């Protein structure tokens, strides 16, 4: 159904993340984080011009992604930046409680807001060695608001209990192809769904119980958002995880 619309799931998720960012905030994304990277550029272009965009190569407020062919950690982010702030600086900043938003990934999530990016199985009976949580284990507890995104929404991703707690903490939102979860009073609750899906579909694709029955539907990407997306991300980096 979604593919009949004039926008892609990547567009929707990118807009949903972009709308979570406020003007003046200091926000960070890491490696393999194309959607968050584009969502930050989108927010700065539309409603959050003074947001501060930090990243792994250390460029503060990169002015363009137009020459970025592949990576969300490439030195293009430094080449046209306003100044530099290293990855270690970013971590220290968050550790000091001064990072407003961190975008982080993960592979498994449970109803208690636990994030697993480490292993499937148990340490003694390892099934899959995952890439690792990168910054999550210190950023999710210390950033004021941690936004997690995941391009898969199924019962293996959203589970009753994660296999391994890589981290938990100041998780704020989880953005998926179907919905946005909110982390509220120690539990994941359904915050809103994207157009084209239903609460029932989300429930069916989620491995833990969802109590909410009626939630708002997010506005589809506006024409202005879509136009801006195409301008700032002509290579469609935001869709790279869906390829």
């Amino acid at each position, binding site marked *: 159904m979604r593919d009949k619309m004039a926008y892609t799931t990547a567009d929707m998720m990118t807009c949903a993340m972009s709308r979570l960012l406020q003007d003046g905030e200091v926000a960070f994304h890491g490696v393999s984080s194309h959607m968050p990277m584009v969502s930050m550029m989108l927010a700065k272009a539309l409603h959050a011009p003074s947001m501060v965009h930090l990243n792994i190569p*250390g460029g503060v407020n990169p002015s363009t992604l137009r020459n970025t062919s592949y*990576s969300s950690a*490439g*030195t293009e982010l430094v080449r046209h930046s306003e100044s530099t702030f290293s990855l270690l600086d970013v971590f220290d900043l968050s*550790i000091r409680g001064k990072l407003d938003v961190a975008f982080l990934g993960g592979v498994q999530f449970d109803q208690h807001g636990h994030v697993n990016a480490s292993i499937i199985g148990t340490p003694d009976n390892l099934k899959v*060695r995952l890439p690792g949580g990168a910054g*999550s284990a210190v950023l999710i*507890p210390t950033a004021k608001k941690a936004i997690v995104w995941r391009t898969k929404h199924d019962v293996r991703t959203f589970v009753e209990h994660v296999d391994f707690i890589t981290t*938990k903490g100041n998780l704020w939102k989880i953005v998926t192809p179907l919905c946005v979860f909110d982390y509220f009073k120690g539990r994941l609750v359904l915050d809103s769904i994207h157009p084209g899906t239903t609460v029932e579909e989300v429930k069916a694709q989620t491995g833990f119980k969802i109590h909410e029955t009626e939630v708002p539907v997010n506005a589809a990407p506006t024409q202005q958002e879509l136009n801006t997306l195409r301008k700032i991300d002509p290579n469609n980096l935001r869709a790279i995880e869906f390829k």
Partner: protein
Amino acid sequence: MSKRMELEEAIKQFIRPGSRLCFSGNALHRAPMAAVREIARQEISKLKIVKTAGALDIDLLCAMGLVDTVDAGFVSYESVYGLCMHYRKGVEEKRITGNEHACYTVLCALRGAIMNVPFMPVHGLLYSDLLVENDYFKVVDDPFGGQEPVTLVKTLKPDVAIIHVHQADEQGNAIINGAKYDDEIIWRAADHVIITAEKIIPSLKGTYGKKTIDIPGFMTDAVIEVPGGAKPCSYEGLYEVDHRMLKKFLSGREKKDHQIWLDNYDQTDRKGLRQQAGGFRR
């Protein structure tokens, strides 16, 4: 006193079985691939690798069966190419110890080496099975009487940092154009520093103020000229990721395949061979 060496020689001299190594760059950007390949050619084994976010550098050495331990926050190609399968398989089959860190705790463990102390306190890491499962983290009381417990990460002291740079001089002064990533940490933390450079000039003396020297010469042990020394990884302003060669590596299944892949780079990595071939302009 010139620190200029050949790659074969530098790797032989400074890297031993069991050495703990740091590599420049991040993910597929500015990894010192020529030096990594030379380590693979020399089959130096039981290596301990420390990196916040590694990809091809770690995966290649894992593929060649040369890795004992990886301390990292993230080991993966970026989205398109997925997991580092050789690393993953090695850990799953318990041939490789994969010590998972937060990227930050890797850097803090290296800070411990820079400061020559056995551990580094780390704020923020309090809710994680990583603390439970791993002996390189400890949670202690604050000896100054603070109420919050303090997490400590055990220091990781690298024997050698290998850093690929844009330009170096014969005294070992080095200039990195573009993103520095964690290089500022690793050259300070390691016992020895090997610089591979796109270009070596006799001396950078007198350029202070015009150029920023990122690594002072007296801190480096060897400089080697290797144009294209990060390939197939990218280097700011010079070359992008070489997707063809990357895919070629990823399609390799056995050690024999990887050895053939390595051979593709023999002439660009090794000066001796470059000169024999006669085709390389100095």
